[in-house]
């Protein structure tokens, strides 16, 4: 029932999240250059990178902000099995996988000790600028203007449910969130407030008309109030 209400209120968000239906018939072709955000364990931090996948299986990575020379570094060849894509970064040990049935290229990565995710939008950058300043200028970060906080569902409080949600999406030049997808959802009860919050969130508008990828993690946790705090309430 609530799903229908959400669908009516936010048709774009709902369609994108409702089950990867748009590309379910086919599969994303990963060949090309992709502007991506790689996120995960805090020790790694978030990274903005370019991935380049050639038709023959060659895969390359370029850091946007690092002063790595040469700009592109090699990855293991990418392979596609059924509708899953796999490759790895020998420098960090990250093994990347992507479900190509999604609307966007992205998925998860793991090492022996950590896990995370990655999310991309198609990029028109082919030649990586030589200097770090030029690289940063080529793909400037998208700046949050309004970050709406989801409400904690009262039913979740009543049932003492805590959880975590990860959502990835694209940001258009107007700063609006488009094509959000729920990557991780610990409980269905948290889906609606996340979609509402995303719909209310904004980024600073940009001149470039390219879509930019971004992800957000939401942690829903419960604090037990002290007896004195309960009395006050």
């Amino acid at each position, binding site marked *: 029932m609530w799903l229908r209400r959400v669908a009516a209120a936010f048709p774009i968000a709902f369609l994108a999240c409702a089950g990867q239906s748009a590309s379910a018939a086919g599969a994303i072709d990963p060949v090309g250059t992709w502007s991506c*955000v790689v996120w995960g364990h805090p020790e790694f931090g978030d990274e*903005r990178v370019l991935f380049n996948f050639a038709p023959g299986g060659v895969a390359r990575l370029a850091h946007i902000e690092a002063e790595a020379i040469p700009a592109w570094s090699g990855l293991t060849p990418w392979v596609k099995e059924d509708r899953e894509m796999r490759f790895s970064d020998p420098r960090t040990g990250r093994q990347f996988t992507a479900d190509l049935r999604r609307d966007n290229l992205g998925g998860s990565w793991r090492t022996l000790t950590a896990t995370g*995710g990655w999310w991309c939008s198609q990029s028109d950058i082919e030649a990586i600028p030589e200097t770090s300043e030029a690289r940063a200028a080529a793909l400037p970060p998208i700046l949050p203007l309004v970050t709406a906080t989801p409400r904690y569902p009262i039913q979740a409080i009543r049932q003492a449910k805590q959880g975590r949600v990860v959502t990835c999406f694209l940001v258009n030049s107007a700063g609006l969130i488009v094509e959000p997808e729920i990557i991780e959802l610990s409980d269905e009860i948290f889906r609606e407030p996340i979609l509402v919050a995303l719909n209310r969130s904004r980024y600073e508008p940009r001149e470039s008309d390219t879509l930019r990828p971004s992800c957000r*993690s*939401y*942690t829903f*946790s419960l604090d037990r109030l002290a007896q004195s705090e*309960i009395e006050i309430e």
Partner: protein
Amino acid sequence: MVRIAICGVASCLMLGPAVAQRQAIPEITQEQPDSRTVLGVGNEYLAAGAEALRIKEYDEGIRLTKIGLERPTSPRDRAAALSNLCAAHAAKNQPDLAIDYCNQSIEINDSNWHAFSNRAYAYYLKRMFDQADADLDVALSLNPNARQMPQIRGMMNERRLRGRVTVEEHQ
């Protein structure tokens, strides 16, 4: 809104014993699958009191039940009636009186989940959540399927838990 919820639970709490009293015809005492108790020898005042409580006529229900308790009655019926009084006073937002009646009920019959559930609700009214939790655990062990206990625990959680959402931006 909260008031409605509280009354809703309170009336649910009484439903078991109330229905039991109305059915006080059969001669053989037996446990029903839904944990309602079919009582033995009838006591019109207890039955009428339970019915009054069922329709939320709390003062009348209390009056009739107290008259019924002055008459000879089985320990089991006495315990159920005391549990009803407990629920009635809890519904009237008189948790101290309610707890006293529940204590008396449990002293006579410590296997009646209604009494523990009613006392849990009374403790909830007094914000004595630890005691309420303990009673809910006992009530659940006696009747794992009763829907009142999750309701009361949910109401307590609403009071004692504060939700916090942390947002982390990745880009």
